[in-house]
């Protein structure tokens, strides 16, 4: 035990804000009940499997392909949303146009729409006889019932995450920064590349992470448009449901655990990147 000197360990730093004990206790309880308990049950169930059995499940070609589809397409969808979401934010923040409020509200629809409805609507549009699908079919491009269809659905549901995280940050960006860059002789392109983008970069990364996390877990909209061919257009969440229906609970939880770990690692990396970008800029002007 440490002696009562200046270096004594204190769990809580002195603060004028009261109620630390109560709120911290509630926070921990809530977090345990809502997040940690279900997750630990998941890992507990997975631990019923022997290591060899786990390896067999995970090295199964169908499982590997489903994970590859889920993570690969989610990253691709988040990247697409990063670019086009960024563009949408730029237009919404920087320009005034008629029905701007309406456009702004439309962005939120993927948040609110039941995912199954979104899936069915997208499938109908992109099917070979649908409005968009019929235009693409002569070009030899098939969207519905292919991995491309999954990508479309994931882009759809991820867009608002990028827009809503970046929008307030860009709106707060000091217009004087761009004036300053222009007065120093920078072209518009240089100003955006060297001044605007680095400033909103942490927010863009957050939006990317959220769109990615949402896409990895997405189920409802994808299963309608994907076609769900094993080894072609089957996503990992669907495979989990299939395994459950086959009463192979341990298999299902094993895939879920791997997804969870992979997501956690990816999100952690993005989080560190974002932290690094933020600390480089510091706060204040």
């Amino acid at each position, binding site marked *: 035990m440490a002696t009562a000197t200046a270096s004594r360990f204190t769990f809580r730093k002195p603060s004028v804000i009261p109620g630390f004990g109560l709120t911290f206790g509630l926070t921990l309880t809530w977090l345990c009940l809502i997040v940690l308990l279900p997750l630990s049950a998941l890992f507990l169930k997975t631990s019923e499997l022997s290591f060899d059995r786990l390896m067999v499940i995970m090295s199964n070609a169908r499982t590997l392909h489903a994970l590859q589809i889920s993570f690969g397409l989610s990253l691709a969808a988040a990247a697409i949303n990063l670019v086009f979401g960024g563009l949408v934010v730029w237009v919404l923040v920087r320009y005034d146009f008629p029905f701007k409020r309406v456009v702004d509200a439309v962005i939120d629809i993927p948040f609110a729409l039941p995912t199954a409805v979104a899936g069915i609507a997208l499938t109908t549009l992109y099917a070979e006889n649908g409005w968009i699908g019929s235009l693409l079919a002569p070009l030899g491009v098939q969207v519905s019932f292919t991995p491309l269809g999954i990508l479309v659905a994931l882009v759809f549901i991820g867009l608002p995450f990028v827009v809503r995280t970046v929008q307030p940050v860009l709106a707060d960006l000091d217009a004087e920064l761009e004036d300053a860059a222009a*007065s120093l*002789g920078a*072209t518009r392109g240089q100003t955006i590349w060297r001044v605007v983008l680095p*400033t909103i970069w942490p927010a863009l990364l957050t939006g990317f992470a959220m769109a990615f996390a949402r896409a990895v877990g997405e189920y409802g909209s994808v299963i309608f448009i994907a076609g769900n061919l094993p080894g072609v257009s089957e996503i990992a969440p669907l495979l989990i449901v299939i395994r459950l229906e086959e009463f192979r609970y341990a298999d299902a939880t094993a895939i879920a655990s791997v997804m969870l770990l992979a997501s956690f690692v990816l999100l952690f990396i993005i989080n560190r990147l974002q932290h690094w970008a933020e600390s480089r800029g510091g706060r204040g*002007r």
Partner: protein
Amino acid sequence: MSIDVVNITKTYKGFTALDAVNLHIPTGELVALLGPSGSGKTTLLRIIAGLEWPDSGEVRFDGADALNRSVGERNVGFVFQHYALFRHMSVFENVAFGLRVRKGADKLPEAAIRAKVSELLALVQIDWLADRYPAQLSGGQRQRVALARALAISPRILLLDEPFGALDAKVRKELRRWLRQLHEELPVTSVLVTHDQEEALELADRVVVMGKGRIEQIGTPGEVYETPATAFVHDFIGESLSLPADVRGGRLFLGERAIALDSQGASEGPARLLARPHEVDLADPAQAPFFGKVLAVRTFGPIRRADIQIVVPSGHVVVEAAVPFGEGLEIGSQVGLVPRRYRVFGAQA
């Protein structure tokens, strides 16, 4: 480089920010645009810089039209009120920005950029901060970085928008002297926007007093203080003691009582008599042109001031007069006021 502003008008949605403004700034001068907020001084500065465009009028640099050149092509250094530093760049990179964005033949080799930035950081006395980020600097240091960054493009014109507005009084005073020195050393014409008259009077070669989108007076600091052209300038610069009066037949009246003071040729009708508090003597109420009741006497350091309530036709006004030391002034007593120097302006002036 000289600057000419010819008949510049600028309106925002019905609000006239600048109303046919004319101004000539000779090469090498340091001019202060002084006025209350909303007087159009910042708009004028931004138009000179090329960050805004006037509705009509001309801006000329050394006689050549500047309006057809963009802000980047005008080669003016602009220092913003809130510094506008790039917070994701170190101090060094902030200053180097203007050199790094150059293209083609103007592009400098890395070694030349390093040398130039080091020289500028030494000039603004913060070479030891080169690797810090703006968030790690004090307000005064950030302003020095902003100035070094503006100077990096070797501007012939330096524009400063309330450069010391966000700093505390002591740093402000120090930076003010230093800026004046810097202006002497560099071959620039400087225009400074401020609402702080002390700053303008101390720093500038000439002061341009602005009010409501118009130039009220252009003159040396001495001229605008000693001989204000309009009542607005008299009120705005320095302390003023203001009394309502009437001019009738070339004579000055307070209500029905004629006052033994010169009307200074002010137009017939209602007028205002303005004087500096320290140029008003206290006297016997029976013989003074003005008299009133002493409401309060205050002392701050070497200065003593009295609030004196004077009865005028429209009720009464309270003026502040300087009280010499040794003069006992009893609260509630009557006292007379004799302005030694004063100005009379018609109500329209």
